């Protein structure tokens, strides 16, 4: 007889159907606020690009210039190859397509260098700079992929970079004069340094991004309130009512006036810069959540010299919970009564 209950529920749901006039009116109102691009440009741009690409490739010469491995940087048709490559980049719209195109071009540059080296033609500085530029663009494009795809992409990009280094080392070995060898050696070192710097910057950025995701996930699992503030996930924030909604739609954060925003603090500064918030009448839910967190995370409750309370991780604390601690301790500094009266063993 469950079908009958479902039938009654669906019938009741139909009572709550919005009026089509209201739906249409609200839609019209909201869309009237969307900044308009000239409709012609919106429609025609990708069409124009695809059309000119098709025309060029259809013409034969451009197709040859783009596809043939004989068209190298010192070939007269090389500029045409570069133009076609620019058009191909423009047509790639999705992050996946962009990353694939950039990776393909990095591999192309390596093949060009291999071919130049094999034909004993001199490698120019311009080629190496072009490789470095396209490698940087490929890393940026790869940064927009999902975690699983990004890992595979990074592997392929690293393989291309390794191939390029081997080409340069091959060129160096074939050189007869010492000065030429030293120059190529310097180029290799310079390239490696620049690419390593780019990788380190990107790694740091990706690590920050990943940590933010982990922090948010942990907050949800521990059922602690959270919000996005200044591009970071803040745990146990002091909310402002009716502030505009943030990107994740959780506790409101943006639109707070500058004079209402809490001051940014130095990470090493443990002194509170804000007055303690007077506790509302019932903090029991947050207290209960903190007690559960302490238990799950194997956290130590420390008593500071100034009498305040702080939570510290132990070797058994999961990494997700460690990420939450800084924000929680900041909140405990303002509201020590959240744990003050609890009968928890403390360490001085």
């Amino acid at each position, binding site marked *: 007889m469950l079908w009958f209950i479902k039938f009654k529920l669906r019938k009741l749901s139909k009572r709550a159907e*919005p009026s089509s006039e209201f739906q249409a009116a609200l839609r019209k109102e909201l869309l009237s606020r969307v900044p308009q691009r000239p409709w012609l440009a919106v429609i025609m741009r990708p069409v124009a690009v695809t059309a000119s690409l098709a025309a060029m490739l259809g013409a034969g010469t451009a197709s040859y210039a783009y596809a043939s491995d004989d068209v190298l940087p010192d070939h007269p048709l090389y500029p045409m190859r570069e133009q076609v490559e620019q058009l191909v980049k423009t047509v790639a719209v999705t992050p996946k397509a962009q990353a694939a195109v950039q990776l393909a071009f990095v591999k192309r540059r390596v093949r060009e260098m291999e071919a130049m080296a094999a034909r004993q033609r001199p490698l120019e500085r311009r080629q190496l700079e072009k490789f470095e530029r396209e490698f940087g663009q490929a890393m940026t494009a790869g940064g927009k992929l999902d975690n699983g795809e990004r890992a595979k992409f990074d592997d392929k990009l690293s393989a291309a970079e390794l191939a390029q280094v081997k080409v340069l080392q091959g060129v160096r070995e074939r050189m007869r004069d010492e000065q030429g060898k030293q120059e190529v050696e310097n180029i290799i070192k310079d390239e490696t340094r620049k690419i390593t710097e780019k990788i380190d910057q990107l790694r740091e950025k990706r690590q920050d991004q990943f940590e933010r995701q982990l922090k948010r996930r942990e907050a949800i699992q521990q059922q602690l309130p959270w919000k996005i503030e200044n591009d970071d996930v803040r745990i146990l924030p002091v909310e402002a009512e009716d502030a505009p909604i943030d990107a994740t739609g959780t506790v409101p954060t943006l639109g707070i006036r500058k004079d209402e925003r809490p001051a940014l603090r130095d990470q090493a500064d443990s002194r509170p810069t804000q007055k303690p918030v007077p506790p509302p009448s019932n903090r029991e839910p*947050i207290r209960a959540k903190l007690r559960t967190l302490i238990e799950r995370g194997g956290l130590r409750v420390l008593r500071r010299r100034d009498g305040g309370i702080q939570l510290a991780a132990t070797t058994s604390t999961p990494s997700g919970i460690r990420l939450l601690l800084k924000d929680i301790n900041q909140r405990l500094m303002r509201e020590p009564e959240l744990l003050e009266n609890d009968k928890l063993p403390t360490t001085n």
Partner: protein
Amino acid sequence: MDKRFFAAFYDKHFKAIYKFVYFRVGANKEQAEDLTQDVFVKAFGAFERYDPKISGSAWIYTIARNHIINQAAKNRPQVDLEEIEDTDWDRQDWDGVMELRHDEQRLLKAIDQLPGDEGKLVRMKYLEGWRYEEIAECLNRSSGGLRVQACRALKKLKAILKQK
């Protein structure tokens, strides 16, 4: 996300959000329209900051839920905000809602008697029209688990209605 994609987002989520709001304002159509408008205006304002990797359903659901909570807090300033946050369903006196028939009022009161999570699931799935996958994203659970729980909840609902 670019605001030019907002139309498709609006079309996809409008009905579910309207119904979500409707059943939280005592089946009052005017109030439901006002609050739904507020929710979508807020969503529109924040749309450029919306990351499409986050589920759209979960995002707009959270905006709607927070807005309802804020409105409830305004109407009941003496009550602690945390108490309201834990009360997902603004319990109505369904007997007083003239737009609903007697059997509909009975059904809504019976849903109120279901335990928290089950009541929420029945409302979202059968009254508001969310799909299991969307509910799973909003509540951070698996859709398979939700299906099993929904079946259990309907059986309890049937038992409650039989008792009355």
